């Protein structure tokens, strides 16, 4: 029997290998692999929707020596988001890379990255997570440096080194856990783990390593230059997916595996770091001179929002309120993924049309490309958290929990963050209103503008209005 989980990882992997082997056909092969991979992910999604969770052992080898893949609602949701972004990025890339050799370099690395990401989301044990995490870091850094400019290479070299440091720290935590419990399987570990010095140090080490990769304040310093200097489709994938993958692991560890170990104090610390990330990231985004830098700093702030959920989740007892809050967290992560991908893709078009991406001088370009400006506006709506985007619902539930659990101070942070986000988004949008000539049509370059627009639109309209199905997918709420 063919296994949907294995396909979700192997299709992009095989596609990447083929694209390496036949560079002349890299683009066609890449697109084909992307389409098949999207179908495989859709298959996983349907399976999880019906069964609640899926598990498979590769080649029939049982753990601990074999490799197991597991999909639950959370991983399926992120898998689907990644597939949407990947499809958008893929189509966009066919219009974006005009030189053949750039496409030939892009596709193998990109498909490898996607395979690593899917592997990470489906991995059932800590060591497979390590391997996929490393693979993700390597491919991400290589892709980020694809333009070959000094800024891009040095920013991404730093990203690579920081990522390696994070992985090593994470691996040390894994070794500690194996010493204490003799297993690496996520489910088994969650069952046996006990609060104590070993578990606590493992948690600290693994979280520190992952926080470096997730660009959690104050370990975010590498992100803005690395993401801002990469080619647009790569920036989109880095900001929307790669950072999210590291955060996904933090979430898994804190909420599933280490749940008994996490103290309110530790959870509040995460919340505090998140709050600082929101304020600092938004402020720096507002002060950025360049559009892509603005988008990169906004990612720092958005990761902060996700961290804000942790102290509230920790404070709530298991029950429907906690479930709602958890789904809201996933909803915000998904919304940000789609919106940020759309924003970076649009920023890439603006940059190419204008020859630069200095916000203050964007006037003519912003007015010339209505569809692209519209994409920025839609993505901005989601980043600010205005209705009807998914992040509006996420923030609503987040603030409700903050009031109900008495931790009202987080609300102040959210308010300041929202207003700062509005300020930086509209700082860009206001450039679209000027005395330049009227554009003749809405869409000027369909192959690049439409994927960006659709991604941003999905973050606003689809995730906002159809959010309820996410509860069903994650097996929570009344539907479950």
């Amino acid at each position, binding site marked *: 029997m063919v296994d949907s989980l294995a396909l979700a990882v192997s299709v992009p992997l095989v596609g990447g290998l083929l694209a390496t082997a036949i560079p002349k056909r890299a683009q066609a092969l890449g697109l084909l692999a992307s389409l098949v991979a999207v179908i495989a992910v859709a298959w996983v999604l349907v399976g999880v929707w019906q069964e609640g969770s899926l598990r498979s052992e590769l080649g029939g080898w049982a753990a601990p020596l074999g490799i197991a893949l597991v999909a639950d609602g959370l991983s399926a949701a992120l898998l689907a988001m990644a597939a949407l972004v990947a499809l958008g990025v893929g189509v966009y890339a066919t219009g974006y890379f005009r030189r053949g050799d750039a496409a030939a370099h892009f596709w193998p690395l990109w498909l490898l990255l996607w395979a690593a990401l899917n592997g990470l989301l489906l991995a059932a044990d800590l*060591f497979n997570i*390590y391997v996929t995490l*490393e693979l993700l870091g390597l491919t991400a850094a290589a892709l980020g440096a694809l333009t*070959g400019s*000094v800024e891009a290479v040095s920013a991404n070299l730093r990203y690579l*080194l920081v990522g390696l440091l994070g*992985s090593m720290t994470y691996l040390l935590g894994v070794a500690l856990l*194996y*010493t204490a419990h003799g297993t690496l399987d996520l489910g088994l570990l969650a069952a046996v783990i006990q609060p104590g010095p070993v578990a606590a140090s493992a948690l600290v080490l693994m979280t520190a390593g992952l926080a470096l990769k997730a660009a959690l304040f104050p370990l975010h310093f590498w992100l803005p230059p690395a993401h801002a200097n990469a080619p647009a489709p790569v920036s989109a994938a880095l900001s929307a997916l790669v950072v999210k993958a590291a955060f996904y692991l933090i979430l898994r560890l804190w909420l599933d595996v280490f749940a008994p170990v996490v103290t309110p104090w530790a959870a509040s610390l995460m919340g505090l770091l998140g709050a600082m990330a929101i304020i600092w990231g938004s402020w720096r985004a507002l002060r950025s001179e360049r559009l892509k830098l603005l988008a990169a700093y906004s990612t720092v702030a958005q990761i902060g929002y996700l961290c804000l959920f942790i102290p509230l989740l920790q404070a709530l007892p298991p029950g429907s309120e906690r479930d709602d809050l958890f789904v809201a967290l996933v909803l915000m992560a998904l919304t940000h993924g789609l919106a940020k991908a759309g924003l970076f893709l649009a920023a890439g078009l603006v940059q190419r049309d204008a020859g630069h991406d200095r916000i203050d001088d964007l006037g003519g370009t912003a007015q010339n490309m209505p569809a692209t400006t519209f994409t920025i506006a839609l993505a901005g709506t989601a980043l600010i958290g205005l209705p009807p985007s998914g992040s509006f619902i996420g923030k609503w539930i987040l603030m409700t929990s903050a009031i109900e659990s008495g931790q009202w101070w987080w609300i102040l942070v959210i308010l300041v963050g929202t207003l700062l986000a509005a300020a930086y988004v509209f700082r860009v949008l206001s450039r679209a209103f000027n005395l330049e000539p009227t554009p003749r049509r809405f869409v000027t370059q369909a192959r690049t503008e439409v994927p960006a627009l659709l991604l941003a639109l999905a973050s606003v309209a689809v995730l906002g209005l159809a959010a309820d199905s996410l509860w069903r997918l994650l097996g929570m709420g009344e539907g479950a």
Partner: protein
Amino acid sequence: MAQLLYGGAGVVLFALGLWAFLVYTPLLRKLIALNIMGSGVFHLLIAIAERGELPPDPVPHALVLTGIVVAVSATALALAMGRRLEEDEGGR
């Protein structure tokens, strides 16, 4: 006892590597530091494979082998990127 010695040495190596990574700026030193950190973790993993009378636990061995492969490729990529930077700077 040997297990403790070996594992302890691993932790010390890790700490040394971390210190060197944070303190020194040159790319090569940072890379060596990262590899030393990696060796530290591998030491620790090998140490915990010992199970007294029983044959050693194969899982940590598999982990170390995979880990070494990953570390080598990461080092190679970092070196390639470093070289690219050096060429650019030389060309100016």
